[in-house]
């Protein structure tokens, strides 16, 4: 009994620790990659950890316009992200919570996070943040179908509705499914960039508020709320990363090997994002929808391939 239970408990523990500690590393990796590509030294990989620690000690400033909704953004964002992280398997180690249809819950938890973030942005009454909120709402309306078409494709392929089994796909990988799988991956990569507001959709580092989407929504946050915002963003990188990586990962015999594979893949993903960011420029705002539609088409096509 205990023998069988203990490993799972350890798995869950590890899962939790990964979720709590690992995320801030990813932005660091991305930044590092970009710096290296640009021939700069760049900030240390653990920069975000330092930032968070400092912010946690700072006092927050609140505009007189804001209400409690202003705090709901950061809180909801992180809480939803963490809740979602309980549903997604990391590599081939199963998720702590897993049931038929959790995939929808997963998607809607991110929807919740977005909703609250938008509201807290609007709460400031700032024109810039309103602008960002509007863009976020608009673009996510396109990202959503892409995500769901991907799910539909995987569900069709695996005739299952639980992230655990849907993503543990390659186990049963046959020639028929490779094509669709690649398409799904492509589509989701686009979603990944958009959802995490990376180049070419958005540029987290710019200081031209007029051009920003996500970053501009949190202009007024400071102190611990801002810490939560940053952490939430990195958490999103991790969880969605796990989502798009898992189908691509090979299954290893041992649990610890699976973990290693997963971490490696995660690192590679971060580096990959960094490479994309240093290779491409931001799209014009009007181009962004087309980019996202491309994602929708990719996943949709994948689904069609599976239908016929």
């Amino acid at each position: 009994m205990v023998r069988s239970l203990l490993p799972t408990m350890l798995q869950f523990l590890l899962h939790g620790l990964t979720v709590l500690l690992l995320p801030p590393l990813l932005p660091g990796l991305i930044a590092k990659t970009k710096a290296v590509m640009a021939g700069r030294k760049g900030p240390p990989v653990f920069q975000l950890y330092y930032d968070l620690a400092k912010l946690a000690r700072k006092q927050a400033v609140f505009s007189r316009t804001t209400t409690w909704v202003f705090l709901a953004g950061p809180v909801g964002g992180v809480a939803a992200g963490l809740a979602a992280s309980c549903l997604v398997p990391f590599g081939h180690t199963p998720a702590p919570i897993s049931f038929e249809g959790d995939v929808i819950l997963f998607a809607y938890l991110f929807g919740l996070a977005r909703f609250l973030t938008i509201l807290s942005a609007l709460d400031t009454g700032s024109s810039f943040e309103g602008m960002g909120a509007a863009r976020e709402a608009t673009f996510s309306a396109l990202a959503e179908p892409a995500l769901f078409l991907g799910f539909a494709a995987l569900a069709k392929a695996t005739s299952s509705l639980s992230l655990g089994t849907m993503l543990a796909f390659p186990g049963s990988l046959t020639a028929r499914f490779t094509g669709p799988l690649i398409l799904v991956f492509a589509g989701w990569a686009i979603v990944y960039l958009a959802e995490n507001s990376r180049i070419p959709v958005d540029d987290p580092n710019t200081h031209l508020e007029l051009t920003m989407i996500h970053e501009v929504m949190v202009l007024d946050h400071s102190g611990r709320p801002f810490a939560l915002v940053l952490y939430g963003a990195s958490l999103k990188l991790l969880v969605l990363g796990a989502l798009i990586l898992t189908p691509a990962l090979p299954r290893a015999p041992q649990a610890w090997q699976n973990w290693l594979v997963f971490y490696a893949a995660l690192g590679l993903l971060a580096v990959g994002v960094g490479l994309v960011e240093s290779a491409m420029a931001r799209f014009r705002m009007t181009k962004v929808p087309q980019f996202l539609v491309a994602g929708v088409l990719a996943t949709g096509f994948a689904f069609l391939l599976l239908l016929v």
Partner: protein
Amino acid sequence: MRLYLLAILAAAASGVPGLFLRRKGGEVAAGLLGLAAVLGLWASLQVLSGGPGGSFGLRTASLGLPGLLVLDPLAAFFTIPVLLLSVSGAIYSLGYWEGRRGNTPALRLVYGLLVASLVMLVTASHALTFLLAWEGMAIAAFLLVMAEDREIETRRAGWIYLVATHTGTLFLFAAFALLAKIHGHSGFSALPAGLAASREGTALFWLFLLGFGFKAGILPLHFWLPPAHAAAPSHVSALMSGVLLKMGILGLVRFLSWVPDPPIWWGGVLVALGALSGILGVAFALGQHDLKRLLAYHSIENIGIILLGLGLGTLGKATGHPVMQVLGFAGALLHVINHSLFKGLLFLSAGSVLHTTGTRDLERLGGLGQRMPWTAGAFLAGSWAICGLPPLNGFVSEWLIYLGAFRGLGLGRQGWPVVILLSLALIGALALACFAKAFGGVFLGLPRTDGAAQAQEAPRSMLLPMGLLALACVGIGVAPVLIAPALGRVTEIMAPGAGTTLSSLAGLPLISGVAVVLGLLAFLFWWWIRPVQPAADLPTWDCGYAAPDARMQYTASSFADGLVWGLRWALRPRVRFPRVVGWFPRPTRYESHVPDPVLDRAAAPALRLSIRGASQLRVFQGGELPVYLLYVLLTLLVLLVWMVA
């Protein structure tokens, strides 16, 4: 059943004392309605918990036709939202109607009658009782919409509503006539197998779809809905949107429950209409800047979602896939209750905004979150639920439909499930944007007008029902297992012998688990970042702009502009761009509004045309006696010749 009849009587009589009492009439009415609610809900819960349903036959019916009321699980299930919303509305109206013009006692009486006919309609199981309750409901609602009939807009809205509902009723006339022909009697009972595929079955399907579609507000029969909901007093809008529309759904559900073997294309039609209503409904909602119109269009959207569920269930029934059947119907039925809860909540809170600021225009509001926090909370809860975000009730029902659709993918190859999936996903995303717009425009940021700046929190009598509904939303969302058994029982009526049960298909407890996790985490983090010392009085940073001004904010319209532009092919917004000329341009203005596709672009022109035609035929009554005699002569000649020939 006796309790139930008492409930009907109590509801009907609720307004009567008010006619004679000088004061406190409202309280008495609310009390009686509360009593009715207790009785009715008690009876319904008994039935839903497996108790025996009752039936009631009218001994002396007109011309020997027996009327019948039957309290089956379906009726009991629909009774829940009806009574919950009615009593909430009654309490709400205490605060809402105080110090308003208009003959309130009479309206209270009508309100009571409306509730009574609703409760009766739910149990009606004979064509005549059904039509009786149906029309009673329609007319009572009409009178309530007309509550503020001094405004021309209200009169127009009321008239449009009256015409629409009557047209629907005429379709029902035909439908029930056909039904009577099939059965040989006008009682409600299951249709013989194989009939659905016949020509009669087809006719029946379309007639019922049209008849009930008008009431439910299915696109393109929805045109009466936005104006009526905007014009009516808010608690009435709540009742209309929350319950009246559902009576159309109830009709469809009853009809579908009679059909043992629906053709596949029925499901297809339902899904198609559902997708249409859902997507266009929310799209048009995005284009609105009148708060209540916006909510009205969202009712259309939710009706669409319900139709998607019904369509899914019908597909399952037609193709013999119990899973789709159970999940589809269960999702649809649960969404019926959920929508009535959160839409009622939304309309009530919108009402208290209107009550204190006197405007429904999103562009003239803002910043109410600080002035009326409780209302803001209620509205936020409603928006949260209507966007289908966990852990509120909206999510659960949509989740069931999603689940059914995904299962459908695994089973059959037909593309309908994916239509359902995509529509739901799109609807979800757009609804999220739309309610971010609505909540942001009304409650967040700085007040855009003095009216908004001087807003007051609503009185307790108005807050109480909101709180009630909000609690219900959260309750169903966090612990769906509470309602699962009842839902299962009703689903068995819709999907008899499906072999599988709801509880075996959906891991509802785990949703509660995640919800709890979410709640705990949220609380923890809030605790961590909660402001400890009183915040210094500072303006929004706004990238250092010194004097942020209410007029600089993103308005609701500008928030939605991107999406409206993206959807312009469907919305066809009418925009008046400002003309900026010269070096020192004079002040100008930008206007945009989204006309209703059916009412403003189709119905009204058609009406004008026919009126012109009629006015040209007026010459036939030209006042000349000889001409009149000529008609007589011609008639005679025509008939004689026809007779000879």
